[in-house]
């Protein structure tokens, strides 16, 4: 019944959007909405057929489903941290509703501004509106600190969509992950709003409060500041960042990145559903652990505290879990060949740890690591293709 009505609405209005109609420039929008509600009518009529029930729309909606736990936890945590520091009620619903106030505007801005660019380019370039943006538009706000001004978020997503994706020809042709491109842009454009100790928690000051509230440093910032003879694990524990808390994620950080546990759950879901490549995710984890252990081995008495941290801490701190689960596995910017995905993931892990440990200026390495390896994805593909062709027995 309902579907019949929806179908009727689309059929009735189709003529306005087709050639000669008044709104023919908006055809991509019409087409996207129709595909969103109904199964497309144009079916491949001749071979070859690939029989698979999954298409881009289903693919992307699976990623959105995998993101939801992280998303809701991010909302809760943003509210919880804010209430904790401003001295409001820590009750679940109080925290969650405060989180909604903080996070929903960001998500709204990200989607509306991003879709504006998407529709603009789709109308001018006559390509279809891609469902890929449903994921990008949700990933992007999750990588931001909760205090980011909305206009900066709008600028970031514009940069991500236009420079990161559309100038290369739209979804499927981008060499970099658009959400991360937007974040990297904000990171360099407005460093004061993307790094530092004060950006991770929204503070609501009451009028009669004269004392400045100092919000907490993130675990990565605590670790980066550790002295030579200090033990980071002890230092973190003193600040209240025990391993289990780092795993569950009730600590200040970017909105979606804090809960390693839920990121892992999302990653497992994506791997089981066959959406994300387990090679990339496992490769990344292996990369972090092996680099961590290697650094443990070379660490001496006078070396930096970062070198001797238990490698598992690298997995749960900061955005690594989020990045490797949702950003690195982006099928467009990751390599397409199966074996080099191990190399790709492994290199992301190695680079993340190296940037964290040896470059105190960027306390979060995973963004740079993924963008850097995005650039190498075509080369990795090329190497594997060459290698396979070499092994092939000549057909003569």
């Amino acid at each position, binding site marked *: 019944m309902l579907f019949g009505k929806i179908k009727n609405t689309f059929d009735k209005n189709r003529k306005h959007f087709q050639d000669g109609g008044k709104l023919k420039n908006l055809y991509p929008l019409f087409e996207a909405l129709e595909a969103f509600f109904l199964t497309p009518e144009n079916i491949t009529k001749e071979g070859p057929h690939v029989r698979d029930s999954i298409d881009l729309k289903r693919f992307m909606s699976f990623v959105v489903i995998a993101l939801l736990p992280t998303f809701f936890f991010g909302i809760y945590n943003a509210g919880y941290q804010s209430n904790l520091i401003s001295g409001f009620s820590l009750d679940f619903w109080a925290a969650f509703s405060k989180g909604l106030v903080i996070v929903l505007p960001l998500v709204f801005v990200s989607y509306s501004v991003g879709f504006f660019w998407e529709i603009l380019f789709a109308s001018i370039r006559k390509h279809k509106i891609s469902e890929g943006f449903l994921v990008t538009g949700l990933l992007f706000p999750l990588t931001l600190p909760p205090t980011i001004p909305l206009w*900066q978020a709008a600028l970031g997503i514009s940069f991500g969509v236009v*420079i990161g994706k559309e100038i290369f020809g739209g979804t499927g042709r981008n060499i970099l992950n658009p959400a991360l491109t937007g974040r990297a842009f904000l990171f360099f*454009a407005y*460093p004061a709003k993307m790094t530092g100790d004060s950006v991770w928690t929204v503070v609501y000051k009451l009028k009669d409060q004269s004392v400045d509230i100092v919000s907490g440093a993130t675990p990565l910032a605590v670790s980066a500041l550790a002295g030579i003879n200090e033990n980071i694990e002890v230092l973190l524990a003193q600040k209240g960042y025990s391993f289990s808390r780092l795993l569950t994620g009730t600590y200040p950080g970017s909105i979606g990145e804090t809960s390693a546990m839920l990121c892992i759950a999302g990653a497992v879901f994506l791997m089981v559903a066959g959406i994300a490549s387990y090679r990339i995710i496992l490769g990344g984890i292996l990369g972090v652990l092996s680099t961590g252990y290697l650094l443990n081995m070379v660490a001496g008495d006078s070396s930096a505290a970062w070198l001797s941290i238990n490698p598992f801490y690298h997995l749960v701190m900061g955005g690594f879990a989020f990045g490797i689960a949702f950003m690195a596995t982006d099928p467009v910017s990751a390599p397409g060949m199966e074996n080099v995905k191990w190399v790709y993931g492994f290199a992301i892990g190695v680079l993340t740890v190296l940037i964290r440990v040896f470059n105190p200026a960027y306390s979060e390495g995973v963004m740079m690591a993924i963008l850097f390896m995005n650039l190498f994805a075509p080369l990795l593909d090329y190497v594997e293709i060459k290698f396979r062709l070499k092994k092939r027995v000549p057909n003569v």
Partner: protein
Amino acid sequence: MKTTETKTLKVIFEPIWKNNPIMVQILGICSSLAVTVQLKTAIVMAIALTLVVAFSNLTVSVLRNAIPRNIRIIAELCIVATLVILADELLKAFMYDISKQLSVFVGLIITNCIVMGRAESFALANPPLLSFLDGLGNGIGYGSVLIAVAFIRELMGSGKLLGFDVVPQAFYLSGYENMGFMLLAPAAFIIIGLLVWLQRTLLNK
């Protein structure tokens, strides 16, 4: 007479828009990344390069029948180097602060592909006056892009133009911030890329 007139005009105006050395030939990118953080340095650089290209073109063109073909690159380099040193000394004498900011980039005009390119491809084959105008046109084409990039970078990066604050204080109070990214060299890359995009779109219409 008519034909020479149009040719002269073409020689001047083509490099400014249709055959712009930066946007079409992608030459001289190095200096356009380095000196465009501020409008002031960009303008001085644009003037210096315009004069150097124009006079090197003129000189090379005057000597074009006297220069032996085999050693023409060396001869051109000598002419360009002389002019660049002249420009550098003049800057040091009269605009010491700016010459400090421009640092090696005035000296590096010698290696700027535009100068050598115009001498090789135009001045060696054309009469002096036309070569001089071609040099002027290319210099202005290069300079205009340089100034456009510097305008955007200084305005967005530090909220100033030519050193004066132009973004009203009220903006900052309501939450506006300068874009630190614009002060980094990659910003010039992106702006030049966007300008190329704009130019291609307008040209292909």
